[in-house]
């Protein structure tokens, strides 16, 4: 009796051209993808492999721990009729310290819109081709990226400046 084909094997085969490396931790599978091919890889995963749900886009700042400094992480989910067809994978893209930028995946999943805005707001990653590249949580004139590891989380000066500007605008 032959066991049914492993769905991860099928995915690995289809996107092998984009994968730089692969790692597994406690059954969770992560693929490292090159920064230039992220949109192609994502549209293949969504349109032909059924990963219709972009769970999250987030960023890790390794500062001095690892090089390159930033890693953009995409969590993708596929819904299937059977249990084995339900699958969650992780894509990781390494980005340089100076002017980190990557193509937006909003054309693939419109749900990426706010997730990428948050990643920009907190880490200062530029998403090229994003339809609405504003900050989402912090005030629009805020000038820091608070979740970067070299930012002092108790530094309230920028927040105070934004607050004062908002007050002045309100009084006009």
């Amino acid at each position, binding site marked *: 009796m032959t066991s049914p084909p492993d769905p991860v094997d099928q995915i690995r085969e289809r996107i092998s051209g984009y994968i730089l490396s692969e790692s597994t931790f406690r059954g969770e599978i992560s693929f490292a993808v090159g920064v230039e091919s992220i949109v192609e890889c994502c549209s293949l995963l969504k349109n032909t492999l059924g990963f219709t749900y972009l769970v999250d886009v987030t960023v890790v700042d390794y500062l001095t721990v690892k090089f390159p400094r930033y890693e953009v992480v995409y969590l993708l989910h596929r819904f299937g009729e059977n249990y084995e067809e339900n699958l969650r994978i992780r894509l990781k893209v390494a980005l340089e310290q100076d002017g980190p930028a990557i193509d937006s995946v909003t054309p693939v999943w419109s749900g990426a819109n706010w997730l990428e805005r948050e990643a920009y707001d907190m880490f200062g990653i530029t998403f090229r081709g994003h339809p609405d590249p504003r900050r989402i949580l912090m005030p629009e004139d805020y000038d820091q990226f608070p979740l970067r590891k070299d930012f002092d989380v*108790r530094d309230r000066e920028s*927040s105070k400046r934004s607050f004062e500007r908002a007050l002045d605008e309100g009084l006009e």
Partner: protein
Amino acid sequence: MGVSSGPLLGGDGFLTTKISAVANWGRKNSLWPMAFGTACCAIEMMGTFSSRFDIARFGAETVRFSPRQADLMIVSGTITYKMASVCRRIYEQMPEPKWVIAMGSCTCGGGPFDSYAVVQGIDEFLPVDVYVGGCPPRPEALIDAVMKIQKKIDNEGPPIV
């Protein structure tokens, strides 16, 4: 205040008082709160308003979400700098005389959030009359704060602006 009655006045009793004393008596017994709830403390504030603790017993049950009809601002919850300008604007929209209660550790001094986004005490931008500590304070503590405001109105009248 005094009570008089006499044949010259037809036998009916009447009160003598000052207009400010009557006005303050009215003010303190019909405080209309503007509930500015932004986090967990707001849940406790709702508990204080509703039947079990029933702040209506102190004349403060008419919660207005329109600042123009309120004279007591209860700021309950974490205030971020982004929200602070909104909070201040709402305070400015309230008609005089007006009072402010800072409910909870967050509004008193930032609470557990010593971070880049959170105001370390709303007295940075609002004139606070009563501070209520606690995370969150019990409804009794909020009622106590309302009673302190009432005493303050009785003793001092409207705040000098």
